[in-house]
């Protein structure tokens, strides 16, 4: 926004500088330009409202028709998460099953995608099949942006689909968005640090925090690297102590962060954060860089980060590959903790011109063959029966253990707003900085209820 304005200012000012006599007139002319540009800067926020006519006549029933429909469909895949082999398989299989039709994959950036999806899916040029971040799903399903897929639930995988993701893709009893894949958070640790401090891999959440405290006091390292804004990694503490972020109480959301159970979890978070040398208001982005620096004994991170925690060609690392250990975050009573489930869902926009073909492509993407490719590439498959496609070894085992017990944020259409407001980050930063836990939780509860019920 700054650039065009400054260019105009510059042009007008170049005129100004020619002669003092001309200065005043030019200044006034330029000022009208300025006044006008003031307005431009403020109107950009509503760009997405144009062309909001939606095609509602793409009823889902027509998708069952046996007539051979041909067309060219566009599929939006986000970021580089989906491996190339899966993309090739999708295109080849789709075009073989639907002679005369073509499928084009258009890769999107994750950043700013909610806005882009809102704009594109409301216009006449909508993509036919989209991948969405799982926590965004309710924001779109509640706005009726997607086609109703309830009749095809069994064909798409049925009860074999990751249950948490099916729940988030369902709104008001209607199934809109099946899972695509899940990510999983694991705890990575330095075996040599564990040996030096004389600690073992913990089996309960409390033990885990105690191990972190021991590592911190014995070695001076971060027991667990835990920056203040890392709310994804803080949620399991609340859930494992029986707390919730918010529960739906007869249509009204009741925020639960200041309940006794949640406070017990937050106190444990505080202890873990106190064992950390990470910035109290830092975030978890690039946490592998911090781990590789060597001052942190444990790190909770997405499973795909494993490859970044060892020396690489383009990045040195103080930690050797042999030194890297991994386990699933332990729960309160042993076993794997309920962790925050990252990942994606798939959906067919209401405005799609080719819903039948989009459904055909979606079925391919949820087929055991396609999901096996995903599993082989380290992504948790959408079908729970394919868990073993992740392979053998420490990391895949930890991934399966963690993913089996994953949990999502409250399934409210307004949840994305809670994330956008930063209220959870603010709360954990306050806790990390030593403010009163009950106060911070009560403030957050009020803000969350305001957003979810607003």
């Amino acid at each position: 926004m700054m650039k065009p304005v400054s260019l105009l200012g510059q042009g007008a000012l170049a005129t100004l500088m020619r002669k003092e006599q001309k200065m005043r007139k030019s200044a006034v002319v330029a000022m009208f330009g300025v006044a006008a540009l003031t307005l431009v800067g403020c109107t950009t926020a509503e760009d997405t409202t144009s062309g909001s006519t939606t095609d509602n006549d793409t009823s889902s029933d027509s998708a069952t028709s046996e007539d051979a429909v041909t067309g060219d469909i566009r599929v939006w895949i986000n970021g580089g998460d989906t491996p190339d082999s899966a993309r090739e398989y999708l295109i080849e299989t789709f075009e073989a099953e639907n002679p005369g039709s073509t499928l084009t994959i258009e890769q999107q950036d994750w950043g700013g995608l909610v806005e882009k999806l809102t704009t594109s899916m409301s216009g006449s040029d909508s993509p036919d099949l989209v991948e969405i971040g799982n926590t965004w799903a309710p924001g779109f399903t509640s706005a009726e942006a997607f086609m109703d897929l309830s009749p095809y639930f069994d064909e798409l995988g049925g009860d074999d689909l990751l249950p948490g993701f099916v729940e988030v893709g369902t709104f008001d009893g209607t199934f809109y968005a099946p899972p695509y894949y899940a990510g999983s958070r694991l705890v990575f640790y330095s075996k040599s640090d564990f040996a030096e401090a004389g600690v073992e891999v913990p089996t309960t959440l409390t033990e885990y925090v105690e191990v972190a405290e021991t590592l911190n006091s014995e070695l001076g390292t971060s027991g667990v690297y835990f920056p203040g804004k890392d709310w994804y990694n803080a949620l399991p503490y609340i859930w494992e102590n029986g707390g919730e972020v918010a529960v739906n109480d007869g249509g009204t959301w009741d925020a639960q962060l200041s309940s006794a159970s949640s406070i017990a979890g937050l106190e444990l978070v505080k202890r873990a954060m106190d064992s950390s040398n990470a910035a109290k208001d830092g975030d978890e982005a690039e946490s592998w860089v911090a781990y590789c620096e060597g001052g942190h004994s444990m790190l909770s991170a997405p499973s795909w980060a494993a490859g970044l925690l060892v020396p690489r060609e383009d990045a040195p690392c103080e930690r050797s590959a042999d030194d890297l250990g991994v386990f699933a975050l332990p729960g309160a009573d042993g076993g794997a903790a309920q962790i925050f489930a990252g990942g994606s869902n798939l959906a067919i926009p209401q405005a799609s011109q080719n819903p039948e073909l989009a459904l055909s492509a979606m079925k391919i993407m949820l087929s055991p063959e396609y999901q096996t490719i995903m599993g082989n590439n380290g992504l948790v498959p959408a079908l729970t029966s394919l868990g073993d496609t992740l392979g053998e070894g420490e990391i895949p085992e930890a991934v399966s253990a963690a993913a089996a017990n994953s949990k999502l944020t409250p399934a409210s259409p307004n949840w994305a707003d809670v994330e956008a407001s930063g209220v959870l980050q603010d709360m954990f930063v306050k806790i990390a900085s030593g403010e009163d836990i009950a106060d911070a939780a009560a403030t957050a509860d009020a803000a969350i209820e305001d957003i979810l019920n607003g």
Partner: protein
Amino acid sequence: MSLKQIVPSRKAKPQSRSRKNLGWLLLVPASAVLALVIGWPLINLIILSFQEFGRAQVFGADIEFIGFENYSNILTDDGFWQVLNRSLVFAAVVVVSTMVVGTLVALLMNFVPKRIKVLVQIGLLVAWAMPQLTAVIVWGWMFNTEYGVFNYLLSQIPGVDFYGHSWLSNPISFFGVAALIITWQSVPFVALTIYAGLTQIPKEMIEAAWLDGASGWQRFKDLTFPLLRPIFTIVIILQIIWDLRVFTQIYALQGLGGLREETNTLGVYIYLTSLGSGEFGLGGAIAVVMVVLMSAVSAFYIKRTLEDMDN
């Protein structure tokens, strides 16, 4: 010696009627473009601000006119007033610091040898040309809690320990860092513009004033500033507008640290309300309030300048 005697007098040229008409005619294309690219979105924005318009409406739900509800919602919301006050105070601080530093740099450039002047200009241009986001990330790293060079340097002073100090978690020092980044990037525009104006002041006038025994401050106050007043006016307006609706720097800094709720400014607040929360109607109403506010600022200065011209 009064200013009137220094400034060469202007002679008004009588204009013929057809020339005047031609002038109006020549304004038509520019006005048409402005009406299209600025007028139309603005009208839409105003309409939007009177509607209940959320994500559901984006996807085709019925749009309802709700009168002034969006406006009464924001005007009775404490959060909005906090954001507005914060934005006004922050913009005032940044405008003043930018103008003072920028003017001083411009005056300095007028005195230093040519080679140094070129060096300063290159430095200024580089700072100006740097993308805002890049600038915030670089500055953010310098103030980083764990690895920041500021914490390191400050800790070199005996008896001072800044290791692990978080600059962004306290809202006051958050805005201190933000003000530093924005001032750093705004000074080049101000300095180069004022410097360009300075080069147009006839050397003889300065010399005459100097011979009459005027001090440096007097020469600036009574000669340079009045001559460059139109430039100062427009630069100040531009700075007020840019600083009042500042977005990139604050939004990016919030990503690096700090408490979001206590550091939102108007631009960020509109973004979060409209695109983050999908409440386009409410965001539209806040945007309209901002347009009115900034138009008022601009109108005030335009009026002042017109009055100056009449004198």
